[in-house]
Every structure is written in C-alpha cells, then in structure tokens.
C-alpha cells in the first residue's frame, strides 16, 4: 500500500476510508496493537513535539557548539510588536520550526520527523494550524498518521537521509509530509493531499546537505523555517485545486535520482557548499581546535 502515493489515493477512494485510518489500520496489523494504544503512542509524540516547539520561544536556547541558537526567541518576540509579512499564521509556524531545531541542537528532546535535522517542520506546521483553526489533539494525531504514510512512500521510493539524498531528502520530505498532512487536516481530498506532497517536493528538489562543521545547525535550523514556508505554499495551491503536471510519485523518483547523482561533498560530509565557504571552514576549525 505504501509503494506509491497513487495507490494510497486509489485505496482511499475505493474503500472510502480516510488516509489516517488506512495508516492506523496497517499499523494495527504490523504491530499487533489496538487502535487506542497506537493513537496514544502518537499522542505522546505530539506532546514532545509541542514542548520542543515552545521551549526555545520562551527563552533563547543555545547549541552545544555555539554557532546557532536564539533565533526562535528573537522572532517570537519580534512578532509581539510587528506585523509579519508572512502573516500571523505562517510566521508563528516559522518561529516554532526554529524552536524545535534549536532545542535539537542544544541536546534537548525532540521527535525525529522524519529525521532530527528536519524535526521542526511537521510539528511547527500542525501545531500552528491547531492553534489557528482550533483542531483537537485527536485531529492532529490523525494528521500525524497521514504524514507517516507519506513518509513511508518516500522511504520506499527514495530516502529521507541527508547523507544519502541531500537536504531535499530530509527537509524536502519533512515539508512534503507536513503539506500533505495539513491538506488532509484542512479538509482537502486525498488526491489534493498527494498533490501538496508533489508540489512541495518539486520546489525543494536539488537542495544539498552542507552543514557547517558537520553539525546539524547551519543551515539546518533556518532550513526548517524554509521548509514550513514551502509547505504553506503547497497547502494553499493544492487546496485551490492546482495540480503538479508531474505526478507526485514521479517527483519522489526524481528526488531519489537527484540524490544519487549529487556530489558526495554535498551529502552531509561537511565538505561542500556552505560548509566549504571561508566562514564555514573557519567556524569548523574553531569548534574542532578550541574544544578538541
């Protein structure tokens, strides 16, 4: 069932089941657990997501290396007195995405969605929609199951690892999951959900993984904010009925291919891109020498 997004849509149309219930039912079969327990397991993750999305807003969180931190707090308090160009919903999601990733870089507790480096995008998007549209926790839990169904298809056709596929595979997948899950949450059809996945991923193809000093901080923290923005773009487009002429499954395949041919210096090795800039190198040397 998780071989393609198209299959998910077809199955959902045929059985008249929501994407969330299809994912939950599959999980019941593979884990042998009851639905209540599976939902509870997800609820627990949601709680940790909420904590990590809040923690760095309340007070600045610095990373272990010291090269990132404090941005979530800065944006959150700027929003108190300023009107964000991105609007009140998206801007709050941006701040929450920064928060989760700053908590991650500061050795705090997060939920990998699908990875630690991209952990801010999905929680920030869903928690903010919960706030603006007053969804219940149960509805958000459903959306998280939709996100995991999408993630499973991506893992089956490509991968979600920066080391294997570049940042398009990490933050790209996270944003695609967030967009697809949000469309379902906001009442879009399964087909629209998958279109949101395709549109998001299309817009993030080719993004390289070039972390300074090999640490999940620069550019990762800000890329989580960018991932949220990409998800928001796709949510509105998909809900308006706009479709990707390249089918979403083929977009995932394109992502896999691009990841394969991407230079290995641009796949989490910390040897290319931003990591190889004069400043990137200097920061890396400082971290390695001063503390090594």
């Amino acid at each position: 069932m998780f071989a393609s997004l198209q299959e998910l849509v077809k199955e959902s149309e045929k059985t008249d089941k929501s994407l969330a219930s299809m994912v939950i039912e599959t999980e019941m079969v593979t884990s042998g657990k009851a639905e209540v327990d599976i939902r509870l397991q997800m609820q627990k993750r949601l709680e940790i997501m909420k904590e990590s999305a809040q923690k760095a807003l309340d007070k600045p969180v610095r990373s272990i290396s010291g090269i990132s931190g404090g941005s979530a707090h800065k944006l959150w308090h700027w929003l108190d007195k300023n009107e964000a160009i991105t609007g009140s919903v998206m801007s709050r999601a941006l701040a929450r995405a920064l928060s989760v990733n700053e908590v991650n870089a500061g050795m705090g507790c997060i939920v990998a969605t699908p990875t630690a480096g991209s952990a801010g995008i999905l929680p920030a998007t869903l928690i903010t929609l919960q706030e603006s549209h007053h969804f219940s926790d149960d509805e958000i839990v459903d959306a998280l199951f939709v996100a995991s169904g999408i993630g499973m298809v991506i893992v089956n056709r490509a991968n979600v690892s920066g080391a294997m596929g570049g940042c398009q595979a990490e933050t790209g997948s996270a944003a695609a999951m967030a967009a697809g899950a949000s469309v379902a949450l906001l009442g879009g059809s399964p087909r629209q959900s998958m279109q949101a996945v395709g549109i998001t991923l299309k817009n993030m193809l080719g993004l390289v993984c070039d972390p300074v000093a090999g640490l999940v901080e620069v550019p990762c923290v800000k890329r989580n904010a960018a991932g949220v923005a990409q998800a928001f773009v796709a949510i509105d487009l998909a809900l308006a009925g706009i479709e990707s002429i390249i089918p979403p499954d083929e977009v995932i395949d394109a992502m896999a291919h691009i990841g394969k041919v991407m230079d290995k210096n641009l796949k989490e090795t910390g040897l290319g891109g931003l990591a190889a800039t004069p400043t990137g190198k200097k920061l890396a040397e400082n971290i390695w020498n001063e503390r090594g």
Partner: protein
Amino acid sequence: MRETKEMSAFDIIGPIMIGPSSSHTAGAVFLGQIARAVLGQKPIRVEINLHGSFAKTAKGHGTDKALIGGLLNLSANNERIKKSFGLAKEEGLNYQFNTVDLGDVHPNSVQFSLWSEDKEAHVMGASLGGGAIEINNVQGRQVKFNGDYATLLIFGKNQPGTTNDVTGALVSNKINIAYMRVERLRHHKEAVMVFETDEPIPERGTKAIRALSWVEWVCQIDKIKR
C-alpha cells in the same frame, strides 16, 4: 510490483530522541550502555578513544556527553544526557577522552576501556546512523552484534559439544534463539559465541551457562531500549 520495506508509522514519526543527531547522540548512548553492560557493574574509571568523525565532531555534537550518559545507564531520550559530565562527577566516574586512529574502521568508531573496583572491560563499536550501532570487539575478541536483541557473549575453551551445552541451557529456560555465531579463535583453542535471543535470559539461565566447565567468561547484554 515495487518492493516495499516493512515499516512502522513510528519509524517515520519518531524516534523520540535527544538531539542533535541520532548517530552522534542516540547511537553513542547505546554504545556507552553496552560498554557498561559488558563490565556488568558501575564503572569508576573509563578511557574513551574516539576515531574519525567521532573524534572530530564529538564536542559539537555532544557525542562525548552521550557516551558518558550511556555509561551512566541513562536512556537515549533522557534530557540529563546534556549534563552527564556533572552526573559522572557525582557518581564517582572518572573519564578521559583520547583521539586515536583505529585504521580502516567505520568513521564513527569508539573504543572503551572501563574499570570497576575488581573488573575491567574493553569494548569497541561504531554508530552506523539513525541510532543503529554495531559492536565489533569485546575483551580483545572480534564479535559482531547490534543490540537489537538480548545478547549473550560466551568465551571459553573450544571442545566438542559447547554449542549444544548453551542451546540446551537456553531451551530449558524457554528462550528463543534469534541468531547465533560461533567462532574458534587462537588456533582453535578458544570458542567465542554470540547468542541473540528474543527475551532476556533469566538469571538462572546465565548461572547454568557460567557453571559449564569449559566456560571462562560470560556476559549478558539487554536489548537496546529505543
């Protein structure tokens, strides 16, 4: 039909973990936990040799704190890992980190030597990514296991019937063996066995194995709690 992997929804939405990276944090915690399990008790001194990427980025990733956290038996999602150096002091664990070149091994490799009052342990392993690990040397013997099962390590004299003795003890304790590997080392004089089992082996099971005449060293390692 395209091949699909067996996956749980919680592989995608999860794990719950301490940042910043599952290979440098969670994986390191698991390696520390296993080193402690090999010692079998609380260590008072540990020397940690870091190789490759582990050596280079240990501080920035908090790998050093995670390794100590594991040695203190903290779980991989315990936020106290960040403060593990302080906890080590409180618990009387002296630690030292060195940078080493272990040669042609995985870039995220680490070698532990640890001591309690009357025991010592030497363990080498690597963090493979996504929180997966591999142990490849224990007490100077090459072994191979990943902590996804309860693991029983047995070193002893090589003689006929050794494998039967162990499987017998496990079966009589109703333990399901998932994998087993038996190797003969030191010119066939020594048997090195790795048993991976579904359930942890109860105390009486390990006792029975310890009592076997040819057995020289036994260690039981719990399944990693992910």
